[in-house]
């Protein structure tokens, strides 16, 4: 019996008890699970994307969600945001049903380049993360000063101080990404969801942003769930990995999930996983549904 199967059995045995504890918990005695899902399934256009997803995310964890294109990673995020209903199973986020506009969840969507003519400055763009969803318009009260200070703190935290007043459309991809992160942080979320924040960034920027997210989240005690194509830049910071592929959703430590054995079973085709001296992962055997870039 593999380590994976053993840990799965352990988890399944623990889980019902853990969930009961969670539901009974009123005070702060037992740390409440941030996300708890049981037998979850999602359908899009009549087609089941994935099913039987059972996992619990604890507070402060850094979770990387990986899997091939079209497997349903972004779908999982959208479901957590309340933008998509689950077709089966139960899910609770911070003890509540997923709902749209949950202010305890910060969201950094997949970056497509912002319109280069967009002349709004980064600072005002970030400020919208605080009150952009409220009706009316901000009145020039003292509270506005406090808000501006908080925005400045968030901008400093992500290292965007030097270009916060330049028009957003003229910034580079990495710079825009930092501002998007600052905007998400401004709402003081407990859970941060990021959809492929490292996509189309060069390798150095990937490492920088990965470290930035981990550091900022750790400082603020935020739980992170991050969708990525390549787990390697995130390996030093990841607690556990959620692997979404072929209609299945698995969770576990990276050295349990991303193994030759497990992936071969999952894809039903011989897959080889190798690790180099630094612990970086290389996956061989997936054809055009390749989920990892082969890093040089």
């Amino acid at each position: 019996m593999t380590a994976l199967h053993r840990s799965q059995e352990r988890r399944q045995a623990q889980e019902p008890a853990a969930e009961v504890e969670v539901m009974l918990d009123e005070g702060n005695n037992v740390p409440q699970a941030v996300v708890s899902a049981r037998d979850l399934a999602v359908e899009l256009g009549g087609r089941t994307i994935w099913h039987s997803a059972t996992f619990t995310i604890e507070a402060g964890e850094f979770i990387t969600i990986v899997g091939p294109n079209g497997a349903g990673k972004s779908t999982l995020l959208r479901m957590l945001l309340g933008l998509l209903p689950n077709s089966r199973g139960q899910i609770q986020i911070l003890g509540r049903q997923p709902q749209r506009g949950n202010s305890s969840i910060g969201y950094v969507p997949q970056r497509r380049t912002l319109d280069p003519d967009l002349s709004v400055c980064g600072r005002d763009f970030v400020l919208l993360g605080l009150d952009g969803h409220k009706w009316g318009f901000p009145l020039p009260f003292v509270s506005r000063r406090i808000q501006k200070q908080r925005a400045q703190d968030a901008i400093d935290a992500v290292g965007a101080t030097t270009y916060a007043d330049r028009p957003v459309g003229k910034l580079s991809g990495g710079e825009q990404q930092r501002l998007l992160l600052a905007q998400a942080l401004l709402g003081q979320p407990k859970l941060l969801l990021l959809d492929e924040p490292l996509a189309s960034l060069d390798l150095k920027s990937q490492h920088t942003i990965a470290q930035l997210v981990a550091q900022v989240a750790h400082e603020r005690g935020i739980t992170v769930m991050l969708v990525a194509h390549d787990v390697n830049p995130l390996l030093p910071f990841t607690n556990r990995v959620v692997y979404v592929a072929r209609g299945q959703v698995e969770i576990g430590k990276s050295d349990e999930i991303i193994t030759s054995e497990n992936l071969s079973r999952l894809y039903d085709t011989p897959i080889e996983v190798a690790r180099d001296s630094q612990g970086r992962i290389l996956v061989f055997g997936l054809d055009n549904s390749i989920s990892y870039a082969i890093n040089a």
Partner: protein
Amino acid sequence: MLGVSLFLFSSDTATHYSTLAERNMQANGSGFTWNLVANVQEMFTYAFMRNAFEAGTVVALVAGLVGYFVVLRGLSFAGHSLSHTGFAGATGAILLDMRAIYGMLTFTIGSALIMGLLGKRLHGRDVITGIVLAWTLGLGVLFLSLYTGYATEAYAVLFGEILGISVNDVQTTLVMGGVILLAMAIIYRPLLFASLDEEIAEARGVPTQALSIVFMLILALAVSAATQVVGVLMIFALLITPAAIAERLTTRPKLAILYSVVLSMLFTWSGLAISYYFPYPVSFFITSFAFFTYALVRGVPYIQHTVFSRRRKDMGAKAIAADLSTANL
């Protein structure tokens, strides 16, 4: 389009403007003096100028505010096509012996609803919009040809005739302006959020689809109001140009809106004031002020850049020449 309308209206317009000029000549007691206060006071003794300024100010305010979001959301073509469908509505109303503004409102609100509901589902939206608006313009020409009465009203719809605005239309404009201001005050924040990043706004609970539709309706109202000043064909001058200039001057949304409104009002007031003394269409003056201001705002940085870079190049060449001369080769 222009050719047809000029053909239809050439004789009418000549008489139209000469009567206006005559009216001005008769009205002008002393003509233009350098005592600006006296000029303004004199202007405002005449009801038609007061009406024009009242309606013009409201329109400028609203166009400057709404225009900022039109530019931000990339709705310039949508705004333009709304004004064209409004033309069909206006001429249809004239044909039915109703007030033009009501026909215009009906058509623009209807088109705005359709555009808003179809939303992002139409890829290549500008193609479909163009096809539909070409047809509505054709409808407008048909209504025009069926109308056997005095066609100056239709001319006013096309090119704007704020100096001839009736008291009723001033009141309607005030009401429209009030509705627009109230609606914009309510939706300002989520609209800005949704305009900058729709996905994040949606995730934060902003009803982006509903907001799109509401804004299209506001745009329909703003376009209908602005048509009275600059006409269907020159909507851009009040709706787009001031906002485009403001965007080049600042990156802060609130400031940009302020600049847009101020510019819009300046163009309108200047256009009205000048047309009091010179018998040429108000819309010509307004569009000219708008255009030249835009050219200025774009041209000055370009000239600065070229001049400075040339100076730098010259200095560089001189430095190299100096080095070469001192070096003993």
